[in-house]
């Protein structure tokens, strides 16, 4: 490809990003997007960050984790605790950063020993880890136990949501196209073969796990800064499952699939709001039916390059032709 054209294309990517941002910002300003819709958008953005980062661990590196909610809760509580003491933008950003770093640290420390486990054993170990984190938050004084933290000032807005969502997708898609990302994918394909080729499997698994935990921490911090209120039961086993469902539904190993599935599930959940009694029943039925008829998820391991999606998905995530 001609160099000039390449530059133009990458310019277009940034332009489309900016465009999406400005449009939504404008709609918020003129009140077309009301509070309820804004909350839905916030949920979607947070879920996208969570799903994309879990996809890095589970979909691309092949490490089956059921503990993503644990990392999210670390980010959320850290940010909330700091925000309650320093209610300013600086406090929010400091909280967000320290939440993400703390989550990454825990992810690193937990990942180091447990990532030697394979498949279901790892899933159960991560599930146990996130339950332990939840129980610790349930018993600590600083997190106010089962009652949870309330009155957290709202600092998360569309700007932060968008920047961190786009940042996460960019970070992870670029990581996957680096040699480190390729190494992660090779670990998923065949760990023994990868090791025979001189790839330190444990190192890459821990790297992916730590990056995933870091992003989950960001998502948690954004959650804390938006919804005013945190309690440990929000981050239970079901939350981890919710995130995993997004990843599997979108297609393991497809970032644009995760984005799509997060949006789709949020829409379905909004729609099901009208049937509160049957909501979970219909949700679970849908899950079973999708898995029976399309077990590879919506996108399989392909990336979306259709024009139907906003420029965001198309341009952030060019399809990886061949490979894998």
């Amino acid at each position, binding site marked *: 490809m001609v160099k000039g054209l390449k530059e133009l294309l990458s310019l277009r990517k940034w332009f489309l990003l900016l465009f999406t941002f400005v449009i939504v910002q404008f709609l918020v300003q003129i009140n077309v997007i009301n509070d309820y819709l804004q909350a839905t958008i916030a949920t979607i953005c947070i879920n996208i960050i969570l799903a994309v980062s879990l996809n890095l661990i589970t979909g691309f590196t092949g490490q089956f984790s059921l503990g993503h909610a644990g990392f999210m809760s670390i980010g959320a509580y850290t940010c909330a605790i700091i925000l309650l003491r320093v209610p300013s933008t600086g406090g929010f950003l400091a909280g967000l950063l320290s939440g993400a770093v703390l989550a990454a640290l825990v992810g690193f420390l937990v990942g180091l020993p447990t990532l030697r486990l394979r498949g279901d*054993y790892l899933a159960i170990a991560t599930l146990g880890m996130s339950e332990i984190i939840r*129980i610790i938050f349930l018993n600590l004084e600083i997190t106010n136990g089962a009652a949870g933290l309330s009155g957290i000032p709202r600092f998360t807005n569309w700007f932060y949501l968008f920047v961190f969502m786009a940042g996460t997708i960019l970070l992870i898609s670029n990581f996957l196209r680096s040699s480190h990302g390729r190494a992660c994918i090779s670990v998923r394909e065949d760990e023994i073969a990868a090791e025979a080729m001189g790839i330190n499997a444990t190192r890459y698994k821990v790297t992916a796990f730590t990056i995933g935990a870091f992003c989950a921490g960001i998502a948690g911090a954004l959650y804390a800064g938006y919804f005013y209120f945190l309690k440990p039961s929000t981050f239970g086993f079901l939350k981890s499952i919710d995130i995993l469902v997004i990843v599997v539904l979108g297609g393991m190993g497809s970032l644009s699939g995760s984005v799509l599935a997060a949006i789709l599930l949020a829409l379905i959940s909004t729609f099901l709001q009208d049937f509160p009694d049957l909501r*979970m*029943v219909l949700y679970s039925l849908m899950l*079973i039916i999708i*898995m029976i008829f399309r077990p590879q998820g919506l996108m399989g391991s392909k990336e979306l390059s259709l024009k139907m999606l906003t420029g965001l998905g198309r341009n952030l995530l060019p399809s990886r032709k061949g490979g894998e």
Partner: protein
Amino acid sequence: MEQLIQQIINGISLGSIYALIALGYTMVYGIIKLINFAHGDIYMLGAYIGYFCMTTLKLGFLPSLIAAMLICTLIGMAVEKIAYKPLRNATRIAVLITAIGVSLFIEYGTMFFVGAGVRTYPEITGLLAKRFQFGSMVVSMQQIMIVATTIVLMTILQIIVRKTRIGKAMRAVSLDKDAAQLMGINVNTTISFTFALGSALAGAAGILVGVYYNSINPLMGVMPGLKAFVAAVLGGIGIIPGAMIGGYLIGIVEVFVSGYGSSMYREAVVFAILILILIVKPAGILGKNIREKV
């Protein structure tokens, strides 16, 4: 000392429940490598069926137990037929998500029909209400009944698995599905039978818990389900005696943590044990480490 023995007795009662649930997990995992998340909910259904038998139908304990086991068997087999069988050749994660879907479906379906509230089992009278006092220790008839029922059921299970043709088929399928099929074993029937056995045991555990703790609710299966799975992993997953040992160990540990430490941390301790055992000896107490070959 007496308190210690009392704790052990309580732990054994609780452990019996975990062991019964863990057996279902371990058998299903052994045969199709699926963490059947819906298993804890079959246990919950067992508790509800027992409840309706005892209140609406006014049946005694034993008929209710048998009814709960039978209905749970049917439900377990139906779940396998409808949800898991079409996915026999799908990826493990797809089947796992399906299992989670089934679990949510049973939980919230039950909630839809019977309400989310807690229900209380009828007061037990007669022989089952007896308590035996030894010094400061108390052993209730219910505890004896739980342990006795568990031992009887486990013995029956062992006989089925060790001595019958279908038991032999189960062991063969769990060892090597394809080879078993080549030897003329009907794999689908065997898997179905495994689900039936596991679900019957879970149903029994459900009604025993109802009688012992009195209160039941549609989400009661989630935590015991997870802990029973921990028990199965602890003992060595796929190994039936391992699930029994794991169940009793988890029960006793939990009671000890509640009794001597803080009851708030008892679940954390269970999961910490799980992580430790996975790191130290992933195959579990009775499991053998198998090196992966290329």
